[in-house]
Every structure is written in C-alpha cells, then in structure tokens.
C-alpha cells in the first residue's frame, strides 16, 4: 500500500463499500448447497445473481464521493485545469474497482473450491465473462458519479441507488419481448450450464459498448458557476447520446452471450449397471450410483425385466438426448439432496417425445404408478407424498407395456 492508496482510503468513502458487497457475495456463494461447484460457467453465472446489488452499491457509493467533491469547499479540486476530467473518474474508479476485485476474488475462490483447474470453456472465456461483469459495475459507478456530482451530499447516494436498483430489477421483465440484447449482462442462473458456452464476440462487444458509454457519462468537463457545478449543454448531450446508444443496442441488436454446445457425459463407473456422468458432477455421483444399483438389483430379483437398463447416464443438457435403447437419464443437481420420487420419475420420463403434443391426463396417473412400483421394489415401506396416487403396484407385464408405449410416444394409452 503506497501513499496514494492511503490517501484514497482516508479521503474517499468509495473503497469501503467493497466490504458490504464482499459479505453479500460470500453469502451468495454459500447459499442453496452450492450446486455450481465444479462447473466453470455455472459458477460465473451463479455469482452474476449479485450484479444488481454490486451495481446499486457502486452507483450510490460513486455518487456520494462525487457529491463530496462538488460541494462548496471542495469544488475547486474538480476545477484545477489539469484535474478537470480525472478527479471524478478517479473517485468513481476507487468505488468500482475494489468492488470488482472483491467479486472476482469470490468467483476465483469458488472456481478453485470446485476443482475447476481446466475449465470446459477455456480460461480466456471465463476471464472475459468475469471482466464483462466487472465492466457492468464500473458502468453504474460512472452513472452514479454523473448523477451525484450535481446533488447535495446528503441525498446523492440514495438518489443514485434508486434508479439503478429499479432499472436492474425491472429490465429482465422486458427481455426478450422488447429488449433483445442484455446490455447489462447476466442476471444469474439456477441450473447447470453444461450444454451452453459463452459467445466471446458478444461479450467483447458488450464490454466495449459499456466502457465507451461509461466514459461519456463520467468524462464530460464540469463547469463551475458561482461555486456550484453547472450542467453544460455539451455534457448533457454526450451523456444523453450514450444512454440512447445503449437503449438502441438493447432494442435493435439481437444477440445472446450463450451459445449451444454439444456435450456428453465423460466419466463412467464400470459397474453393473454402468453409470455415466460429467466430471464436473463427480462429487454428487456416489449417492446416485448407490441408489441406482439398489433399484437395478431390486428390478432383477423381482423379475421386472423392463426395468433392467444397460446404462444410466446423466442428462446431456442439450437436445441431443441419448435416452431410449437401454440408456436412461438422470439429473444430479438437486439442492436438497436426492429426492427418490423426483429421481425415479426423471429416469422414466419419455424425454424423447416432443413437447408440443397434448399430454393426456392418463399419462400422469400411469407415471405415478410406475414410479411408485419401482421405488417400492427397492423399499416396500415407501409412502408417496401425494395420497391420491393409486397404491396398487403394476405387474411386470404392465410395466413393460407402459414403457413400450412411452418408447413409441403413445402417452397415456391404457
């Protein structure tokens, strides 16, 4: 730490706002059983859920410091000939950069904690995605600085926090009906991101767009009239043009930073039956393997040949499902641990049938009885959560008939 750092920490409030945001970021990283651990893209997108928090605090923090620089007694600092532009930029950067560094640190630790040493999408894509999140925080710090420098110190913070919070919370409602390009990036993700990758061209475009418009907000040369900062016509026009450009891009450009990638499970346990999964989910798989062996053994012992499968495979997260023909798929990412009912229902669901067909009501009754039958083979004392399910198990013949109907996508035919 050198004299400049010490001076900034002593005279500005901005750097200190990284402390509450770091706390919220860490809390976010530890919530919901940390399902993102092990996946590169899921980790980065999971942490994007705190973007509206970081951006709001950055805008309000930068506004507070900008207002302090503009108040009588300090305004001469922004009027020194060689400081005119840079003093507001300097104070906004001292708010934004500590928040960005703390956020990046949490993402980095989360990646390493999940054992992501060679990410599926490559380190360059991961770094660009994290930089894109940081640039969003910087943009809102620039906006906060532009708003706060014209307001009294006491209300600058809340006056910048309010529009930022409302904007970031309401924008996703307009996507994708009105807006076709999320200029402020991701809002987070709650499920596995396998099967998707980053479009780094879109991310780079977003970064350039945000940096250039942020510069237009923070850099207009301030003017002093009778001891107060005055709006200059040119500054207002440049800022308005930057905001208009951003709005036009969000509406007119159709771009998504997600790309579809074909992936397949890459680790197989050579047991009987064989269980295959993605290496990202290795930490979750032992419970699945144990339960699958139990189900398989029960089906073989009690003569349910239709429920004997050669291979159990984690779902591929893309349209290229491998299910059918002796392979059935499962989803290991359940925040509350393995829910036997949902798991078995997931195994038996005919995911290869297209969604646009009408699903008859009889299908759901059949599905429930089928699920109950298989779970009870392994655990005869199992009670389903829904008491309306017909508790009489299906016979081996009925099971094979229902499954062959599923195979042909004749759902619900009695």
């Amino acid at each position, binding site marked *: 730490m050198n004299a400049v750092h010490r001076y900034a920490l002593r005279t500005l*409030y901005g750097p200190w*706002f990284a402390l*509450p945001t770091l706390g*919220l970021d860490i*809390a*976010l990283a530890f*919530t*919901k059983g940390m*399902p993102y651990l092990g996946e590169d893209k899921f980790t980065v997108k*999971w942490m994007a*859920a*705190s973007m*509206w*928090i970081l951006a*709001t*605090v950055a805008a*309000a923090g930068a506004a*507070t410091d900008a*207002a*302090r620089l503009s*108040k009588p007694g300090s305004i001469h600092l922004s009027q020194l000939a060689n400081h005119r532009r840079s003093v507001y930029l300097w104070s906004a950067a001292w708010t934004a950069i500590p928040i960005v560094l703390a956020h990046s640190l949490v993402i980095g630790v989360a990646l390493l904690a999940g054992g992501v040493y060679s990410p599926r999408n490559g380190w360059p894509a991961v770094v660009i995605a994290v930089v894109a999140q940081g640039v969003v925080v910087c943009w809102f710090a620039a906006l906060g600085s532009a708003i706060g420098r014209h307001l*009294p*110190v*006491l*209300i*600058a*913070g*809340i006056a910048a*926090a*309010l529009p930022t*919070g*409302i904007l*970031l*919370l*309401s*924008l*996703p*409602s307009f996507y994708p009906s009105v807006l076709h390009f999320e200029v402020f990036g991701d*809002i*987070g*993700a*709650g*499920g596995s991101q396998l099967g998707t990758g980053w479009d780094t061209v879109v991310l780079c475009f977003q970064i350039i767009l945000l940096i250039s418009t942020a510069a237009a907000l923070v850099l207009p040369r301030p003017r002093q009239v009778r001891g107060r900062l005055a709006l200059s016509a040119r500054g207002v026009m440049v800022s308005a043009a930057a905001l208009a450009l951003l709005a036009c891009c969000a509406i007119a450009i159709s771009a998504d930073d997600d790309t579809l990638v074909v992936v397949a499970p890459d680790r197989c346990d050579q047991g009987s039956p064989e269980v295959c999964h993605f290496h990202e989910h290795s930490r979750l798989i032992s419970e699945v393997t144990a339960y699958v062996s139990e189900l398989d053994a029960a089906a073989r012992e009690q003569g349910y040949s239709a429920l004997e499968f050669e291979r159990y495979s984690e779902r591929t997260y893309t349209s290229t499902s491998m299910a059918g023909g002796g392979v059935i798929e499962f989803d290991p990412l359940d*925040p509350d641990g393995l829910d036997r009912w949902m798991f078995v229902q997931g195994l038996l669901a005919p995911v290869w049938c297209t969604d646009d067909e009408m699903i008859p009501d009889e299908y759901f009754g059949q599905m429930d009885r089928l699920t109950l039958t298989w779970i009870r083979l392994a655990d005869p004392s199992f009670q389903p959560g829904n008491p309306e399910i017909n508790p009489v198990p299906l016979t081996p013949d009925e099971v094979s008939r229902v499954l062959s109907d599923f195979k042909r996508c004749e759902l619900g035919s009695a």
Partner: protein
Amino acid sequence: MLRSWLGVHPWRLALGLIALATLGSVFLGRAWVSRTLTISTATPDVLESPTPLGMLMPVVAAAGIAVGCTGPRVRLPEPTRVRVGRLAWVAALTATACVALLVTRAAPGAVVRGVLILTALALIPVVLRLPMVAWVPPVVYLMASVYFGGQSGGRWAWWAQAFNPDAEPQDVIVAAGIWAAVAGAYALRPPVARF
C-alpha cells in the same frame, strides 16, 4: 423557534425524498397489492424472492428521514429541551413518512413496520455522525433480506420481516421498539455532521 430549528435541519431534502417514495408507492401501488411486480422477476429461479417492488419505497423514505435528522455542522448548546425537540423532530418526520406512504392504502401494517425498522437502521450512521452514508444500512439490509431472508415457501426469516408484505399488529409494536431505541440514542447524542 421552529424557524431556527428548520434553519439548521435539511428538511427540504428530507421531504423531497419522502415525496419521491410516496410517488413511487402510488406508481407501484397496484403491483404492490396484487404482488405481480416482484423482485423474483429479476433473479434466477433458485433465489426466487417474493418481495413486491413497492416494499422498496420505505427504504427511500427512511433515507429521507435520516437526512432530515442531520444536525448542524457545529456543536451547539445542549439543554434538555433540545434533546426533547430532537426526539419530537424524528417522530414528526417518521409520522409524516408513514402517513405519506399510506396514501395508497395498501398493506398499512407492513408499510408502518418497514418505515420504523428502516428508519432505525438509517439513523445509525447519523448518530455516528456520518449522515451521507445513511442510505447504506437500509440498502444493504434490503439486499440481504431479498436474497437470504424470504425463500422458504413465501415465509420470511425473523430478521428480514421489514420486507414481508404481511404484518401482524405485534410486528408493528416490535418495530416501534426498535425505532424508539435508535431514536432515543439520536435524541441523546448531538449529531454533528462531518462531510
């Protein structure tokens, strides 16, 4: 006397923020009642939080009250009647905000409870003589509550009740107790402002 009191307190800024919060409540009023416009629409599925956007407005009102409670920048004499006056002043601002936000007639218990708890939080930096960061505790508390306080089946954690759109009468009494504790501290300690 009232004129000199108003002269050293930024009441115009305070009323401006309270008016802004009222406008926001009126604007979001219908969504507040129907609970259609919630923070959930902006957050990923796992972090779904059923906070109506209207519940954010007490945050702005509380920041306004704290701004209005900012004292003069010099130390003035402190007879008892000044302390009583400070308590009356913060009570009057809080009452103004409650009445103003109740104009929508939506969720009155939740509004009063929200204003009381958030005002108590916003007053803490004022008591600590840092009034320009009065917005920090309510805003950070809002964010923590939205993400970590209200997720289990529409229920709210005990510490995140300020954003629960439902309120029982005893919740308002507890909130009034919290408010009274911080308001008392504000009345006893001269809030000399350092900018």
